[in-house]
């Protein structure tokens, strides 16, 4: 196994290959201490999920997989490996999936894990999970011929389905606990029973969760840790302090203020890991409201794209922790990502000319156009990106007023009231463009009132046809060609200007290892994680 699919820039990967060594057994492990049994690892997240299993909502991705497993797991190259499924087979037409399940696996309450549990979980996911509803929309029948075989029958092929069986994406929960109950209020959400490496011990809301070793885990000698503590630390400065003082072993998605990153590099006890983000790929973009008469005109959008200097944004706003990306498909999705640069390179003179020609001459105070930009408040840097946009666009005579509110107001303004001209957002590609990218460009997904649907109100019949085609195309070559054409069109028509993709760091203590060995990294099960002696 190689790390060839990673982007070429790999600054800051200081001795962080523990993961690679653990999955591949490669000899590159000379500097990495071997796994050791015992100890407690303390990890932190900024916010606390409302429930602990991502069965009916996907906002508990951070912790779900520690207790609740999936059928498969994916390595850092997104290659599938068996978890609860021992082996699997997909029919050539892509309509039948046969999973042979691991035998002798027990739920944490002692009951046997069987194919009935898988069938029940899939039924709940298809019915109630916000993403499961679409992922499993074409799942017509689940057969359980014996306790250790599950057969999925689809009405239409779903080319990305094989990537959807990760623990946090498609969790397998115990049927005997969910039978006849409302999955939204089921007690398993608060005190989960799973098959995973860790058993749930306690949850003190607002403070922490404690998981303890499952001694009967099927993948012996794992898990290595005796105890896993999850803390919730809402303040970025406090997260820096917790890492520096060693109170917390690990935080993910660059858990500190970006201007604090360089200082922490010199702290000595901390390591910066870039692996473990292959399952969720974000793209930051500036989005137009195409219902706005000005932004409905392509030359105005082109002018704005010409006025935004992506490398400078990545260097200043994101302190070099982002890389420019003109495509809506993130580079981590290597087989689909289009490497070609934006047709609209940074060029102020050209932007001015486009606006002149489009009928926006400089008026009073040298202003051509006044607009309003809505900042998504969930990420600090988005606010700064909006400020940057305001400054950049003032150079070409577009006056931008930046508005900030909390997330509820933002969602209402942008997605329900559509009371915005411009906005900036960070959107996840997830594990496949059909799952994460289609929603933003597909005209049928323009659904006022639903957050993170097609916010720009972009509508292009050819793009719709391509997106609908890629959703069912099982031939990888044809699918790739369709995604390529899709990217060419949206990069040319720019309903949104893509800025860059994060190179997230998992910042961890030198002794906390083995956590970033899967595509879902810190959101994974931690069965391989250990504290070095």
């Amino acid at each position, binding site marked *: 196994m190689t790390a060839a699919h990673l982007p070429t820039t790999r600054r800051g990967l200081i001795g962080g290959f523990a993961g690679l060594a653990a999955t591949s057994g490669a000899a590159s492990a000379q500097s990495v201490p071997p796994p050791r049994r015992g100890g*407690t690892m*303390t990890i932190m997240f900024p916010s*606390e999920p*409302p*429930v602990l299993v991502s069965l009916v*909502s*996907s*906002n508990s991705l951070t912790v779900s997989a520690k207790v609740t497993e999936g059928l498969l797991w994916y390595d850092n190259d997104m290659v599938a490996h068996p978890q609860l499924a021992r082996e699997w087979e997909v029919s050539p037409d892509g309509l039948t999936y046969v999973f042979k399940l691991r035998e002798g696996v027990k739920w944490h309450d002692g009951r046997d894990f069987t194919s009935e549990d898988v069938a029940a979980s899939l039924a709940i996911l298809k019915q*109630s999970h*916000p*993403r499961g*509803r*679409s992922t499993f929309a074409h799942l017509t029948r689940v057969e359980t011929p014996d306790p250790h075989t599950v057969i999925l029958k689809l009405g239409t092929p779903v080319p990305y389905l094989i990537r959807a069986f990760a623990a946090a994406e498609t969790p397998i929960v115990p049927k005997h606990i969910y039978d006849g109950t409302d999955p*939204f*209020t089921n007690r398993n*959400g*608060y005190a989960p029973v799973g098959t995973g490496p860790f058993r749930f011990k306690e949850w*003190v*809301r*607002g*403070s*922490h969760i*404690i998981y303890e070793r499952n001694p009967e885990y099927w993948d012996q000698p794992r898990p290595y840790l005796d*105890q896993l*503590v999850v*803390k*919730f*630390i*809402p*303040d970025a*400065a*406090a997260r820096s*302090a*917790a890492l*520096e*003082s060693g*109170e*917390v072993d690990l935080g993910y998605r660059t858990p500190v203020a970006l201007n604090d990153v360089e200082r922490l590099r010199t702290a000595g006890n901390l390591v910066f890991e870039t692996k473990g983000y292959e399952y969720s790929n974000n793209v930051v973009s500036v989005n137009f409201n195409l219902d706005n008469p000005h932004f409905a005109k392509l030359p105005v959008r082109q002018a704005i794209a010409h006025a935004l200097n992506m490398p400078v944004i990545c260097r200043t706003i994101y302190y070099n922790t982002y890389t420019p990306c003109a495509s809506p498909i993130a580079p981590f999705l290597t087989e689909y990502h289009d490497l070609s640069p934006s047709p609209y390179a940074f060029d102020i003179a050209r932007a001015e000319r486009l606006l002149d020609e489009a009928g926006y001459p400089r008026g009073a105070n040298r202003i051509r156009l006044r607009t309003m930009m809505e900042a998504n408040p969930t990420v600090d840097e988005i606010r700064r990106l909006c400020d940057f946009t305001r400054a950049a666009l003032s150079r070409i005579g577009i006056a931008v007023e930046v508005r900030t*509110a*909390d*997330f*509820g*107001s*933002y*969602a*209402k*303004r942008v*997605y*329900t*009231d559509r009371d915005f001209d411009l906005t900036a957002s960070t959107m*996840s590609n997830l594990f496949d463009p059909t*799952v994460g990218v289609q*929603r933003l460009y597909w005209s049928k997904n323009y*659904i006022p*009132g*639903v*957050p*993170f649907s097609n916010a720009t109100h972009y509508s292009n019949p050819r793009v719709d046809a391509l997106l609908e085609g890629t959703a069912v195309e099982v031939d990888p070559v044809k699918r790739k060609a369709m995604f390529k054409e899709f990217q060419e069109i949206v990069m040319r028509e720019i309903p949104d200007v893509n800025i860059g993709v994060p190179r997230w760091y998992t910042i961890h203590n030198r002794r906390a290892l083995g956590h970033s060995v899967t595509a879902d990294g810190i959101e994974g099960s931690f069965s391989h994680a250990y504290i070095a002696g």
Partner: protein
Amino acid sequence: MMGVLDRTGTILRRTAIQVLPTMVGIIILCFFLLQLVPGDVADVLAGESGSATAETMAALRARIGLDQPVLTQLVTYLTNLAQLDLGRSARFNLPVTQLIAERLPGTLLLMLSALSMALVFGVLFGWIMAVFAGRWPDRLLQVLVLVFYSTPGFWIGLMAIVLFSVKLGWLPSNGSMTVGVTLSGWDLIADRAKYLLLPSLAMASFFIAVYARLTRAAMLEVQGQDFMRTAAAKGLHPAVIQFRHALRNALIPVTTMVGLHLGNLLGGAVVVETVYGWPGMGRLALEAVLGRDFNLLLGVLLLSSLLVIVTNAAIDLLHGWLDPRIEAH
């Protein structure tokens, strides 16, 4: 003796009469204010999950009752409240009373600890400054008090974290207890105290400054009073004069302010609880606002108002004890 009981009775009776209309007023006012806030819990939950559909959102709204007319929602809430049912949190899917009960001890502990710290150090500093008025201990403490007065508590908190947690490693930077170990007896108390110290200081610093200045001014004023000279003429020990006569009289303005500050302390708790990751009601309230979890927010507001009313009644009682001339009206 009878007078004391009468006064206590009057204060309690007055509180009991005031509490109900105050709380119902707060609830109705907040309920309508919250209607003005854009977005609802379905928007937030759907935004967090990132891939909701119109059907899941409609189902969520129906489950919570947001599809009902506003007045129906208010009447339902008040009817439930009359049966002492605070409803369910839409976000956590748990009874509001359970969520609040989990957080209440943490908040009370932090508030009491911060308040005691503010009172003890404030009064002590004020008294020292008054006794040494114009001399160097006074000057030195004045500078410290000025720093506490003019610096935001969260900044003092962060700097204290940098010094005591990151650099010196003496005190923990975050949380309310050592997680994952089982402690008992003195170890348990020492552990909790270690976590309590920095957040209490961050919360108390401003109030230490206020109480120190109040105490200093009041003490200096009292020093010139006739009864002080009388006490000295009687031949009382200077320490007795300072404690029994000067301090007791100087405390009245301080205790008045404490009553007023309780609301501020609850408000300031949000910031301190965030910086220190303290599991208290302040953060719960903030998360409830951001998550549009209005049942939970109304529950927190209701309880906070009750807390302020009750502590103000306690302050009234304390005033009566400190200075029997103050009557309950």
